[in-house]
C-alpha cells in the first residue's frame, strides 16, 4: 500500500452516511428518560428595571416541575466574567437569568421547567413581569458620549473597550498628498445563523455526582473549563459533549447563560433538563456580529501608492462582554486587520466597543476581517477611481511583494510568506480580467450596469499560544491534543480536543492519521467533540481545526510509531534502529522478518510471554498523546473577484460570476476546502446584500424570523470557481493554512466593490452594507434627484 495516498485527495466524507440517513445525533436527538424541558420568559423591554415577577399561575400550569427566577438560582453559580489584559476594559458579569435589570429584548428572565416543551411554553406565557422602563441605549455613537444613560450602573461610561494602533506619522501622510478619499462606512448587525439553533441538555446523575452537558457548541473544552469553576464541580465529574453540531460559524463559540442554567437546573431537580432554542430565540439571543461604523481616510500619491490610512471605529458590542472572547473580539480586530496585505507606512486605527441594549457581540466567521477588508478594499477602489487607475493595478502597486516577507503590518501583525501577489494575479487570470473590462465597457455603453469587484486580503490562521485568539483574552487557545491508541487488531482510535461543527474534520483527520501511520483509512476511527476524549481540549474556531488537529495528529503518529518500533524490537528480537515502520507494518532492515500492525498488536497484547514483562511494564499500552502548539499563526490569503449586474428597474443585484484564488497551503481534502469556501462566500454574499438584524430606536428587535432576516437561497448564489495555485507551503506541521473563514472575509468586500463599480457611472459608492433592495432604491433615487438638479 503506497503511503501518502489520502492527504490531498478528494476523499468522500465518513460523516455523510449518518447525516444522509437520519442516523446522525444532534443534541436534540439525544433521548434520556425523564428529560424535562425548559422554556424562557424573555424580556420584551430593551432596558428596564424588573419591579416584580409573579410566577404563581405558571407554577400551577399543567406539567410544570418548577419556575425559576434569578433569586431562585442565587448562589448556584460563581460569577462568570470575561476578563482581559486590555487596558481600559470594563468587564460585565454574565447574567444567567436577569436580576434587577434587563438590558436587551430577548434576555432570559424566568425559566420554566415542565414535562415537555409545549407545557413549558404554555406556563412561560403565564408569568407576569412588571417592568419600569429605562431610557433605551441603542445607538452606539450616542451611547459613547459622556452624557448617555448608562447600561451598567457604576460604570465609567458605556465604552467597554478602547484600543489604538499607530505607525508612522499619519497626520503628515494625510496632509501632504494630492489625493485623498474618505468615507463613513457602516456595516450593519448580523447573526451567524447556524441552521441548527442552539440546544443544550444537562444530565445530573446524583448517585455518581456526575454532570454531563450535551451542547450544540463549537467549544466543549472552553465550556467545561468555565463551568467547572462556576458550578464548583470537579473536572473529573463534568463532561461536555458536542455531538453532531448543525453549523456554528462563531455563534456557538461562546459560553451562554442557557448552558450554565440547564446545569444548575439539572442539579436542582436531580435529573435531565433540556433547552432547545427556537429560531426567534436564536435571532434574539445568540451572539451577533459586525455592527460597526468606520470613519476611514486614505491618502495616495499620483502613482496610486498608499501613503497613509486612518480609521476610527465604533463597534456596537451589545449589552454584555461575551465569555470568553470579551467585547473586544470583533471591533478590535477591525483595526488590527485593516492595513491588510498592503504596504502602509503611516497608519492610525482607533476603536471603541460600546455597550448598547442588544444581545452581546461575539465571534462570527472572519471576526473583524470582513469589515476591515470591506473598508480597506472600498478605499482602494475609491482612490483608484479618483486617480483613473485600474483597480487591479492599484492593488498590485501596493501589495506586499514576495521578497518583503516576513512583513510587519502597520498594526503590528506579522505576515509570513504567502501568495499575496500570486493569488491576485491568478484570480485576475481566471476571470480573464482584461477581457472582462472590455465586456463591461460594452455593457455600460448599452446602458447595462455591470460591475467588477476585487477583494484581496490576508488573515492569520491556526494561531498558537504566543497570540491570543481575542485581544487580551487570558485563556490559552493555542494548543490542541491528539491521543492515539492501537487496539489488539491493529486498528487506531484517534481522539482529539479540536472539534467540528460540520466542516468535515472527522474525515480530514482520518486522512492525516491513515497517511502518517501508513494504514487503511477504514482502520482509523476519530473521536472528537467530547471532553472525555482527551485531558484538555478547546474547540473549533478561528480557522484552526485543520492546522491544530493535523499537527497534533502528526506528532502523535510519530510517537506511536516509535513505540511500535520498541514493541517490534522485543517481538522480532532485533535492535530498534534496524526496524522501519511503514505501509502498516514493521520490518527489519534485512527484510527477513516483518510484522503487520495487527500481528504486532495481537502478539503484544494477547500472546502471553511474547514480550518480556519488564519491557511491557515500561512501554505500557500502545497509545500516545501529543499536544501541538504552532506558537504563532500562519498567514492565509486570497483574492476574490465578483461580477454583478444591477437591474435598475427591479432594484435587484445579481451576482453573475465569482472567482477565488487562495493560498491555503497543503490541502488535506480539496472537496472540503472548496465546500468551506463556497459556504463562506454565500454567507459573505448574505452580509453584502441581505442579512441584517434590525433594531428600532427603542431597542425593539424587528427581524426575529427568517421572513425578516433574509438568508441567501440557492438562486441568490452564483456558481463559484475556486483556484488553489501551487505555492510554497508554510512552516507549521503539515504545511497547512486555515481556510474556514476565507470565503466570508473576501465576499463582503468583493460584492460591495462590484456593486460600486456597476453604479460608478451614477457616481455612487457603496459605503453601507448590506445593500438591500431598499438601500439600492434609495441610492438610485438620490442619484436621479442629483442628476435632475444639475
Amino acid at each position, binding site marked *: 500500500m503506497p503511503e501518502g495516498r489520502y492527504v490531498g485527495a478528494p476523499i*468522500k466524507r465518513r460523516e455523510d452516511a449518518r447525516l444522509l440517513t437520519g442516523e446522525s445525533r444532534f443534541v*436534540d436527538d439525544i433521548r434520556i428518560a425523564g428529560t424535562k424541558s425548559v422554556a424562557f420568559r424573555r424580556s420584551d423591554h430593551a432596558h428596564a428595571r424588573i419591579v416584580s415577577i409573579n410566577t404563581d399561575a405558571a407554577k400551577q400550569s399543567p406539567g410544570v416541575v418548577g419556575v425559576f427566577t434569578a433569586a431562585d438560582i442565587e448562589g448556584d453559580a460563581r460569577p462568570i466574567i470575561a476578563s482581559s489584559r486590555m487596558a481600559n476594559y470594563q468587564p460585565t458579569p454574565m447574567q444567567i437569568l436577569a436580576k434587577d435589570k434587563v438590558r436587551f429584548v430577548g434576555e432570559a428572565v424566568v425559566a420554566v421547567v415542565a414535562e415537555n416543551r409545549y407545557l413549558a411554553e404554555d406556563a412561560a406565557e403565564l408569568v407576569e413581569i412588571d417592568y419600569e422602563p429605562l431610557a433605551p441605549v441603542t445607538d452606539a455613537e450616542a451611547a459613547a458620549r459622556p452624557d448617555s444613560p448608562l447600561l451598567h450602573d457604576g460604570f465609567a461610561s458605556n465604552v467597554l473597550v478602547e484600543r489604538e494602533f499607530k505607525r508612522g506619522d499619519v497626520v503628515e501622510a494625510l496632509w501632504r498628498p494630492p489625493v485623498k478619499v474618505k468615507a463613513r462606512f457602516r456595516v450593519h448587525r448580523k447573526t451567524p445563523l*447556524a441552521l441548527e439553533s442552539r440546544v443544550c441538555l444537562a444530565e445530573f446523575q446524583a448517585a455518581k455526582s456526575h454532570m454531563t452537558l450535551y451542547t450544540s457548541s463549537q467549544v466543549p473544552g472552553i465550556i467545561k473549563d468555565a463551568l467547572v469553576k462556576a458550578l464548583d464541580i470537579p473536572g473529573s465529574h463534568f463532561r461536555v459533549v458536542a455531538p453532531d453540531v448543525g*453549523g456554528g*460559524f462563531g455563534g456557538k463559540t461562546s459560553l451562554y447563560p442557557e448552558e450554565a442554567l440547564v446545569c444548575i437546573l439539572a442539579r436542582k431537580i436531580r435529573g435531565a433538563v433540556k433547552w432547545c432554542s427556537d429560531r426567534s430565540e436564536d435571532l434574539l439571543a445568540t451572539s451577533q456580529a459586525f455592527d460597526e461604523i468606520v470613519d476611514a481616510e486614505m491618502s495616495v500619491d499620483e502613482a496610486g501608492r498608499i501613503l497613509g490610512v486612518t480609521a476610527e471605529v465604533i463597534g456596537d458590542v451589545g449589552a454584555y462582554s461575551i465569555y470568553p472572547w470579551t467585547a473586544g473580539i470583533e471591533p478590535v480586530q477591525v483595526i488590527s486587520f485593516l492595513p491588510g496585505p498592503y504596504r502602509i507606512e503611516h497608519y492610525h486605527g482607533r476603536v471603541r466597543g460600546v455597550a448598547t441594549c442588544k444581545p452581546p457581540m461575539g465571534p462570527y466567521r472572519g471576526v473583524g476581517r470582513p469589515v476591515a477588508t470591506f473598508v480597506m478594499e472600498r478605499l482602494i477602489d475609491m482612490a483608484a477611481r479618483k486617480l483613473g487607475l485600474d483597480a487591479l493595478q492599484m492593488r498590485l502597486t501596493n501589495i506586499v511583494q514576495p521578497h518583503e516577507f516576513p512583513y510587519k503590518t502597520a498594526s503590528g501583525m506579522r505576515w509570513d510568506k504567502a501568495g499575496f501577489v500570486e493569488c491576485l494575479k491568478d484570480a485576475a487570470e481566471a476571470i480573464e480580467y482584461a477581457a472582462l473590462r472590455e465586456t463591461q465597457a460594452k455593457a455600460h455603453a448599452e446602458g447595462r450596469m455591470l460591475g467588477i469587484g476585487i477583494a484581496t486580503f490576508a488573515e492569520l490562521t491556526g494561531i498558537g499560544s504566543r497570540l491570543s485568539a481575542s485581544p487580551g483574552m487570558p485563556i490559552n487557545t493555542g494548543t490542541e491534543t491528539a491521543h492515539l491508541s492501537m487496539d489488539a487488531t491493529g486498528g487506531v482510535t484517534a481522539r482529539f480536543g479540536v472539534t467540528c461543527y460540520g466542516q468535515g474534520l472527522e474525515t480530514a483527520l482520518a486522512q492525516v492519521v491513515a497517511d502518517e501511520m501508513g494504514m487503511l483509512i477504514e482502520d482509523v476511527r476519530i473521536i472528537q467533540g467530547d471532553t472525555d476524549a482527551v485531558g484538555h481540549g478547546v474547540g473549533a474556531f478561528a480557522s484552526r481545526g485543520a492546522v491544530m488537529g493535523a499537527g497534533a495528529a502528526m506528532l502523535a503518529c510519530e510517537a506511536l510509531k516509535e513505540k511500535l518500533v520498541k514493541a517490534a524490537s522485543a517481538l522480532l528480537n532485533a535492535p530498534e534502529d534496524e526496524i522501519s515502520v511503514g505501509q502498516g507494518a514493521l520490518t527489519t532492515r534485512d527484510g527477513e522478518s516483518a510484522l503487520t500492525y495487527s500481528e504486532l498488536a495481537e502478539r503484544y497484547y494477547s500472546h502471553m510471554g511474547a514480550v518480556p514483562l519488564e519491557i511491557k511494564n515500561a512501554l505500557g499500552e500502545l497509545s500516545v498523546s501529543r499536544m501541538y502548539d504552532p506558537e504563532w499563526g500562519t498567514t492565509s490569503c486570497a483574492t476574490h473577484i465578483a461580477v454583478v449586474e444591477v437591474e435598475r428597474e427591479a432594484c435587484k443585484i445579481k451576482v453573475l460570476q465569482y472567482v477565488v484564488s487562495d493560498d491555503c497551503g497543503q490541502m488535506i481534502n480539496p472537496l472540503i476546502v472548496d*465546500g468551506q469556501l463556497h459556504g463562506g462566500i454565500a454567507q459573505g454574499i448574505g452580509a453584502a446584500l441581505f442579512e441584517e438584524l434590525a433594531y428600532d430606536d427603542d431597542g425593539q428587535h424587528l427581524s426575529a424570523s427568517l421572513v425578516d432576516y433574509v438568508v441567501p437561497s*440557492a438562486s441568490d448564489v452564483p*456558481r463559484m470557481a475556486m483556484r488553489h495555485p501551487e505555492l510554497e507551503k508554510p512552516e507549521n506541521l503539515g504545511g497547512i493554512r486555515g481556510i474556514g473563514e476565507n470565503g466570508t472575509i473576501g465576499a463582503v468586500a468583493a460584492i460591495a466593490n462590484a456593486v460600486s463599480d456597476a453604479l460608478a457611472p451614477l457616481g455612487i459608492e457603496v459605503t453601507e452594507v448590506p445593500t438591500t433592495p431598499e438601500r439600492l432604491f434609495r441610492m438610485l433615487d438620490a442619484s436621479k434627484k442629483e442628476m435632475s438638479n444639475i
Partner: protein
Amino acid sequence: MAFEKRIRVTVNGRAFERSVEPRLLLSDFLRETLDLTGTHVGCEHGVCGACTLLMNGDSVRSCLTLAVQADGAEIITVEGHGKAGEFSPAQEAFHACHALQCGFCTPGMLATVVDALRKLPLDSEAEVREALAGNLCRCTGYQHIVDAVLTINTKEEGIS
C-alpha cells in the same frame, strides 16, 4: 391531559396509530412521539425547509403541518430513503458531490430533491437552483448540492 385525537399514519412503510393533541406539529409527532429524529426543525415557521418530508408523494413542511392533518397519510422521512451502504440515488449523489457539511438541512433537501426530480425537468442549473430555493443551507453555498442534483439520472426512481 387535553383532548386528544386518534390518528393513523404510515411512516416509511410502517403503520402507526397514536393519540395526539390537536396542536401537535407533525415534526414533533415524528421526532418526539415516534422517535424518528432524522426530521430536523430549523425555524418552525415554514421558511428554512429543514423539516421537509414526503407526504402522499409531495414535499411538505412538517413544521407547518399538524399531526392530525397527517391522519391517513403516507409519509416518507429521511429514514425511509436508502441506508448506509445502500444509498438512494439522491443520497449517493449528495455523498459523491460533497453536498452536505453539517447535514442539518440534508433531510429536507433530500425530500425536496426527490419531489422536484419527479415533477420538474431540472435540465438547467437555473431550474435546479429555483427548485432548491425553498430550502436553506448555511454551510455549502449550494454549489455542491446543485452539482449533486445535476448528476442524478432523472430517469431513475428518486428513492429506493
